[in-house]
């Protein structure tokens, strides 16, 4: 099992669970998520709304409200216990070690600061140096993300940029302090198709050049196919399948992944109905006792309602949580 230092995981997430506790109910947003990320690897968390993918990401960045979110499990990044970080160490960790790109750049950027002020603040906080040096670095970063005439755009306010340029500016901000791990939460979902592909190709190139590990949250199978090395499919808060992107999209092991692939409109014949998954995802306040997909699953067995299936590894390098995948 020794693949050299490069194959040691950078990030190790073990049994991560996030519950949101209110007076009325407890929402089990993420349950028992376990995955590893190697240096330079791109993992896509794939799932529909409410599947827990964004909450997982926010837990890694320690962005969840401490009072209301009950976090359990272990997150280790480069040997450090992420969930135990406090105070100054946590502030350096955010932005310095881990950086995040959000879905909507207009709401994630502060409207009263210029792009340059955003960048320079982050650079000086994490790397120090004079204003002039930070400004020079900021222009380099804008150039890196292919913003045309960066010397001029550095003094622009977020509202003065188009959606595509704003998202590029946000990427520059995330990259400004050379993070080891980049977290991207649906960064291209709000963009038009012709702009989305530009940003995806840019992110793929930057990720390769800078050798960053990346976790990419998306609901779009096409985006995953375009950028991921591995995918983890989430359903109702749990990772139900994980493996290399090509294998998972070509030969899914879990019935939900197969259903998601079949129900995504993509070159189906207009004469036939799309193979939709019946029903809707379960209420995260009242999860069924067994497999949470069982009520919608065409292949469900009586055993599926008894308990949530354990992770199994029917093929090398691939994980699935489904009773069906076990040898009967």
């Amino acid at each position, binding site marked *: 099992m020794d693949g050299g230092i490069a194959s040691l995981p950078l990030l190790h997430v073990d049994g991560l669970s996030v519950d949101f506790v209110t007076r009325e109910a407890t929402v089990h947003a993420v349950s028992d998520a376990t995955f590893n990320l190697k240096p330079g690897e791109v993992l896509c968390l794939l799932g*529909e709304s409410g599947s827990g993918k964004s909450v997982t990401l926010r837990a890694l960045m320690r962005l969840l409200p401490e009072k209301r979110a009950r976090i359990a499990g272990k997150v280790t990044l480069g040997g450090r216990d992420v969930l135990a970080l406090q105070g100054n160490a946590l502030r350096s960790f955010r932005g310095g070690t881990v950086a995040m790109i959000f879905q909507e750049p207009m709401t994630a950027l502060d409207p009263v600061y210029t792009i340059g002020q955003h960048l320079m603040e982050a650079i000086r906080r994490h790397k120090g140096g004079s204003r002039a040096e930070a400004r020079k670095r900021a222009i380099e970063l804008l150039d890196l993300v292919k913003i045309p005439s960066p010397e001029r755009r550095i003094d622009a306010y977020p509202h003065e940029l188009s959606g595509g340029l704003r998202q590029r500016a946000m990427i520059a901000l995330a990259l400004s302090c050379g993070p080891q791990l980049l977290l991207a939460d649906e960064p291209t979902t709000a963009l038009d198709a*012709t702009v989305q592909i530009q940003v995806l190709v840019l992110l793929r190139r930057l990720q390769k050049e800078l050798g960053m590990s990346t976790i990419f949250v998306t*609901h779009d*199978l096409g985006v995953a196919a*375009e950028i991921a090395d591995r995918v983890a499919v989430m359903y109702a808060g749990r990772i139900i399948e994980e493996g290399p992107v090509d294998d998972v999209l070509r030969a899914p092991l879990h019935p939900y992944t197969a259903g998601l692939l079949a129900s995504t409109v993509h070159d189906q014949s207009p004469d036939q109905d*799309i193979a*939709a998954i019946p029903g809707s995802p379960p209420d995260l306040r009242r999860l069924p006792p067994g497999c949470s997909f069982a009520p919608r699953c065409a292949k469900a067995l009586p055993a599926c309602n008894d308990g949530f299936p354990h992770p199994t590894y029917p093929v090398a390098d691939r994980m699935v949580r489904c009773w069906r995948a076990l040898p009967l």
Partner: protein
Amino acid sequence: MSAALDIKPYVDVRDRGGSAQPMLIVRDLKRHFRVKGAGKGAVVRAVDGISFTLFKGETLGVVGESGCGKSTLARVLLHLVEPDSGELVFDGDAVAAPDGISVAELRRQVQMVFQDSYSSLNPRMPVQDSVAFGPMVNGRSKSESRRLAQEILIKVGLRPDLFGPRYPHELSGGQKQRVNIARALAMNPRMVILDEAVSALDKSVEAQVLNLLRELKRTLNLTYLFISHDLNVVRYISDRVLVMYLGQVVELGPASLVFSEARHPYTQALLGSRLSMDARQRVDAPPLVGDPPSPINPPSGCRFRTRCPNAEGVCEAKMPELGAWDGRDSHVAACHMQDPASGHSKAGLH
């Protein structure tokens, strides 16, 4: 006699012109919006001279990026936004003309489903009342409207006893969109405008709603105008496709032809921007650079020329015409390369 004679074709008394007469003819429709604070006389040319024909029983897909005017077009068609100029003819009758069809009557026959399924329902009304509301204000009795609402909820796959008394916040996104479809159908429309009606739904739910829309169209003899930014969905559901760019039509034709032999460079770029769902066929180079330009003061001549790899002098000097189309099979594109007489160096090569 054979049994076939007993099957009567579906006859709608409101169908006056017969199946050959188009459901809707749109001629040179314009709607501009003045914008403050963007320079003197700044106007957004949201819909700028759009003409097309919608035939009875077809689904016409409208695609384009944000800001291209597709939602304004939908609103202008129903006079939710008044057009500046242009002509609308619904089944042979000019809309809002003295001897034509009134806007109120048009809105009875043409219904609309919006993208945001929550904000388009009254949060203080149980969904069965929302669905019954349209028939009720149009002269049906309360009990009759209630009964009709129950029938229609069944048609869209919601059990009236279970879902009828619920409020919108008690429903999932897919269920809410089914209620919106039911509400549109309660008016027994002949045509439905679907403005990004499935865009906010998760993929597995989107597939359910698309299947439902197709089934309803078959059983209720409907005509759809289907607006979406998702090319895969448009390809799947449409008979014909209209591609918009900055307020204008750049290509119009049968879906199979537009998707297999796109003629306009913008349509080609849109198609080239689709993600493949196959990790072995990744896009190496994006087909276009930059964002769509602002619809305020768009470029002269061909509006796509600033992003077009084939732009030449003629594209700046002259706005290309969409060309004549005569029927369901016509495939036209507003590009100088399509016109051998335009003077473009690549003209007539296609």
